[in-house]
């Protein structure tokens, strides 16, 4: 059973309904449990992956934590989870934790159930998360565990994501979030073939787009999505950081994370996850009207970096950082040429740099507005 979290009630109160799919083990591909001879020229070299199951589980755990802390704008309703572990990492979750496998059949069943739940209330939030292999030609094909079962037409084990997304606009719920953590490359030989993957649902072209859309992909067209082995992917880490406050903005008395802000900040947040990924992995997104999906009573924690105009001055300076409307007061002693990096709550700060060396002039009380996802201040007279 793929339903791993169920807080659905009969009154159909608004809730977040989540479908999470993490495909690391490809049964019929190279290194898979029932490896078959494949025409790799036609589909490209597709390896077993250890990152997607970790990504799926990290995302599930994050949502459950946020729900427990009552930070989600509407409570968590259900989570459907499908995970196919890689043979290299057969137990990506807790010890002996088992999962419903992410075969195309299981994905279709879970999608259908999930869609019905989402359809129950316009105030529901539909959240779809896929991590695994993907290739793109005229649609973005996401590969299920049983991709390649029929080597004559391996695409029977995949589904057309873009059409599926389009079809979901017909669902009653006004807030729809689709996160796809997959590559979007195409092999030259794929260009000469008629790929036959079908969507999980057929679109109705008379359906209007949903009001609050966020459809985000981990990579730009023809590009890769990356991650370290046995760890959540860079994209998943960035999404979690975004939700955790890196994409937060002030709204009245609260800090909130809105759908459109996740998209707007995601590439910058990717850089903070892995600085070298700032360009080589470019996320793309489309969004509709903004919608609050998380709210925080406290200001989010932001990394503040402080430096002087030269490395030498930075090394000689004693830095001080004081919160304007709060208690925070921290000092860094001289001797390091690297900028002072410190986690602070978003807000207003007074920064100063003082020197024992008479060759340098002190910088007194330079105000700084520190806000997510990251603030850098260079102190100068």
């Amino acid at each position, binding site marked *: 059973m793929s339903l791993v979290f169920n807080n659905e009630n009969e009154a159909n109160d608004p809730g977040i309904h989540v479908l999470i799919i993490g495909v690391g083990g490809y049964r019929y591909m190279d290194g898979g449990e029932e490896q078959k001879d494949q025409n790799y020229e036609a589909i490209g070299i597709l390896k077993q992956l250890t990152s997607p199951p970790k990504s799926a589980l990290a995302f599930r755990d994050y949502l459950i934590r946020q729900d427990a802390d009552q930070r989600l704008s509407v409570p968590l309703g259900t989570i459907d989870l499908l995970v196919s572990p890689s043979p290299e990492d057969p137990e990506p979750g807790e010890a002996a934790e088992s999962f419903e496998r992410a075969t195309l059949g299981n994905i279709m069943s879970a999608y259908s159930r999930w869609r019905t739940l989402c359809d129950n209330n316009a105030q529901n939030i539909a959240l779809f998360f896929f991590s695994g292999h993907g290739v793109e030609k005229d649609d973005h094909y996401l590969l299920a565990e049983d991709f390649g079962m029929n080597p004559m037409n391996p695409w029977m084990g995949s589904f057309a994501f873009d059409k599926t997304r389009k079809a979901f606009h017909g669902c009653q719920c006004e807030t729809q979030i689709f996160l796809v953590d997959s590559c979007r490359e195409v092999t030259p030989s794929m260009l000469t073939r008629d790929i036959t993957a079908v969507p999980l649902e057929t679109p109705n072209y*008379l*359906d*209007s787009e949903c009001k609050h859309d966020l459809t985000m992909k981990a990579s*730009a067209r023809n*590009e890769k999505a990356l991650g370290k082995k046995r760890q959540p992917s860079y994209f998943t880490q960035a999404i979690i950081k975004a939700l955790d406050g890196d994409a937060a903005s*002030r709204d009245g008395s609260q800090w909130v994370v809105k759908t*459109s802000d996740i998209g*707007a900040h995601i590439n910058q947040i990717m850089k903070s996850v892995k600085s070298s990924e700032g360009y080589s992995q470019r996320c*793309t997104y489309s969004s509709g009207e903004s919608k609050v999906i998380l709210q925080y009573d406290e200001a989010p924690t932001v990394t503040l970096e402080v430096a002087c105009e030269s490395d030498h001055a930075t090394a000689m300076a004693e830095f001080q950082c004081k919160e304007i409307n709060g208690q925070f007061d921290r000092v860094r002693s001289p001797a390091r040429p690297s900028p002072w990096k410190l986690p602070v709550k978003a807000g207003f700060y007074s920064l100063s740099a003082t020197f024992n060396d008479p060759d340098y002039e002190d910088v007194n009380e330079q105000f700084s*507005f520190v806000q997510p996802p990251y603030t850098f201040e260079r102190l100068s007279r």
Partner: protein
Amino acid sequence: MAILSINIQTRGSDSDRIPKKVEVIDSTMQHVQSVWIEGAQQNIQLSPGLYAVILELASGKRLEKVAQVNSDADTSEVRFDLSKITPHESHEWAYLSKKPVETKRLLVEKRYRGAWVRFWKKNSDGRWEITNSPIQNQSSWDRDGVSYNLEVSRAQHFMQVGGPKIPWRLVALPPAEELMCLIQPGAGPSYVHPLKISVTSNSWKAETLLTYLQKDSYKEARELVNNAEELLYGKVSNPSAAAIGAYYLIKTRQLDRLHNWVENLRNWMEWMPDGAVLRAWQLILEGRSSKQLSPDQLEEIRTNLLLAWERGIPLYTIGLKLLREGLELINAMMPEDNLIMKNLAKVKQYIAAADLQSSTTTFNGIKPEKPDAMSRTGTPETKHLAYLYDIPRSAVRKALNTPKIHITENFLSKGMNNNVGNIIPGPKGDFSERSFDSSPSKRSKKSTKALIDEYKESMLNSDKPNDEVLKWRTGRFDT
């Protein structure tokens, strides 16, 4: 209340006019107000206190300042210096209104050697032809980017870039007396196209709106353009700005504000496919709001989409995507319609070859009617070719073997360092067997390669290219 004066310093004379969003937040982190500034200075009224003033550019780049607003001071001031956002005044518009790349790569690097541009125009008979280069002499050539000033008439135009190591790519050029185009080295890995191309007219509000639309920032788009009708209203004088305004209204479903102006745009601007795409989508959205399309509506949508495609390729990426979606809709509802099916297949080829992140339609291809995601590299045998920055050795050598020897000699002698000296004609009158006087006292033989390399070193890296270099770079060498 006290006054806070917000001052924005830029380099370019027109840069002030580019809209910039300024948001003010108080010390309790509450949003106080947002304003759009289309000038060098604006005053706002605030209660005394400490404020964060955030200036946001269309690219998403944000600059923050903290301002103390005092009741006793005449006027408090906050100053944003955007003049250092780029080292070149001629690049500034792209940083303020578009989303240029930030990279340390330079056009003198190996991969950019021999990079070229040429221009295509769709003639009244519907055929695409290579046209005279519209590059104006006041364009600027820098190692980190080339900024063209182009004069583009009211017809379908494409600029094509390519090179020995650069896949051929085409970029739609909206009509304008002074269209600006910035070509920079790309910042991406090898599988991303090595050149980043930004294009703009000086309709700054429309262009900034387009940047926001391209990244689905509807909130900012809505704040920027309270009245998109004003863009549509000017459709005769500025049809591309009108199209951008209409795309905004279509994307934000403000159908009642489109009036019949989209029809007029379609009828009056026959060279522009976007008007017909927009009219089709006005009808589609009207149908969607009533959840049905009558046969007459369907036929009218079909007619408009076919008309759009007959006219050519939409100017803007947003239009290309809407054209595909519209054709898909008609294809689904009229599956036997072979013409729709054929056009849809063709549009899909363009989409597959397109850079959907660009605001003006951009795709890889050999010519405008031949999109190809895996586009070829190399240098075409063609007239009106302009070299982007570098002038390849083979091109110089070829010129030297042509009858234009006098031009060539001038061209070379102007470019040579003092120690290279004068060209002495060879016995056969061609360049390969000539010797060179390297100094008055000492004669030595120099190879063609060495001479040309010395020429390139001295001329291409100089701040002011001479007239001959200008001819190569503006595509007027053979005219």
